């Protein structure tokens, strides 16, 4: 896929790089050399201990990954921090907001509430894997058409959840959509647009 190739050549946006560099630099002032290295290699949480790294094989957006991970790494942190698939968002990190929603073997889950090592052998789909090349997924198009977002932070989770909601058949009426989308919070309050987008795709 073109997108993942682009990501490998240009890792992350400049804003993210700037943040990482400044975090690493501020760490240098007070923390020993070993930690400085781990900050630079983006393994911020690992410096305090010598960890057992566990092998992990899983498929993400159709691509097989053979990895070695700290058992404490959540699936969300694996996606964002290790694989730089930053479309999946970290909101509350406690399963209360739904911003981290991804599909595992076709079912929606909160990626913040599972350890990556527990997902061995599974097929993960993130928001990056939804579009068909440059052609957006119908749910992505519907969110744009119906103004299903304002700031956009919850949107990847909303869309992943919405796609699953339609696949599950929980779209009989507004009330059912609202009930089965209640695990995704939108602080901008774009709920009406989200429900309308789901209704259109469910038709």
């Amino acid at each position, binding site marked *: 896929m073109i997108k993942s190739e682009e990501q490998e050549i240009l890792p992350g946006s400049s804003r993210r790089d700037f943040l990482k560099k400044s975090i690493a630099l501020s760490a240098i002032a007070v923390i020993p050399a070993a930690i400085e290295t781990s900050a630079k290699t983006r393994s911020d949480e690992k410096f305090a201990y010598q960890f057992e790294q566990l092998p992990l094989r899983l498929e993400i957006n159709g691509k097989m990954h053979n990895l070695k991970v700290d058992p404490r790494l959540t699936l969300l942190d694996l996606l964002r921090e290790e694989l730089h698939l930053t479309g999946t968002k970290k909101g509350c990190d406690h399963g209360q907001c739904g911003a981290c929603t991804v599909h595992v073997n076709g079912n929606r889950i*909160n990626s913040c509430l599972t350890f990556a090592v527990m997902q061995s052998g599974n097929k993960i789909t993130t928001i990056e894997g939804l579009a068909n090349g440059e052609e957006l997924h119908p749910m992505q198009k519907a969110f744009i058409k119906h103004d299903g977002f304002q700031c956009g932070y919850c949107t990847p989770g909303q869309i992943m959840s919405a796609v699953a909601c339609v696949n599950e058949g929980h779209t009989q009426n507004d009330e059912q959509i609202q009930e089965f989308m209640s*695990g995704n919070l939108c602080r901008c309050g774009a709920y009406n647009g989200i429900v309308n987008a789901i209704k259109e795709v469910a038709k």
Partner: protein
Amino acid sequence: MKPFTFSRPADIKSAQQLYKKNEASQFIAGGTNLLDLMKKEITMPANLVDINSLSLKEITTGDAGIFIGSLALNSVVAAHPDIIKNYPLVAKALLAGASAQIRNMATIGGNILQRTRCPYFYDVALPCNKRKPGAGCGALEGFNRTSAIFGASENCVAVHPSDLCIALAALDAKVFVQTDGKESIIPFKDFHRLPGNTPDKDNNLIKGSLVTKIYIPKNNFNIHSHYLKIRDRSSYAFALVSVAAGLHIERGVIRSAVIAAGGVAHKPWRLYETEKFLTGKTASAEIFKKAAVIAIKDARPLEYNKFKTTMLEKGLQLALKNAMA
């Protein structure tokens, strides 16, 4: 998060052997509660045994009842045809809990073992006897809006958060447990504990034991049952008060009744006296009102949760009315 060793055994025997390797071991299945507790360092296992490869997902239906494997997902059980047809109270309670995402992760075994959502348990800066025995109970004299109105002690006023458990308590489910190759069966009413002097113990499960399945006996409450959940928002919140009610009606007369309340005690709260009062009576709004008065007779609310008593009194009537519909 504290570091831990991780393993994923293929059978119960190896799982229990791996568990014994460390004093601070913990089984993990869905992880929807445990990850929260580990991130907040309320639970700090040094050894995590992932039981998701064990063959405990099966749901077996029979004439006498239904067996639900402890690793069956909440979403799968809620959508199971036999559950919907013969045990609708279970499906209703499951769908009233959590979100679609969490129900796709959370297991039945994990559901009954989930820990309280008392804010004093979750905030490590505040005292809590359940989290740290001897530390004191912050909720007793504190902001106890969500606390228990039945069966609490001076050591703990926390409530059990599960919806499913309220339905399982009403339907006299049984918990199948495996300990070192031996199977034992615990009636649901004896599975969870009241806090007493040991609020750190939520249930009577022996350390290292595994819940393998839940059994629900066939019953006559499938026609007239209701799970009513009252909470701070209309979806995705823990119950302030909930009521699981099942009535067996013949020609307008209540042959038998089962009622359990949630959000009101440290364990699912069966209302046996109310059930007894209803038995043999003709179902009516007036009878339900009298039954509700009996239900709240023993309530001992704290400073900020007095509303729960009224909520249970009204909620019970509504649940019974809806069960009749």
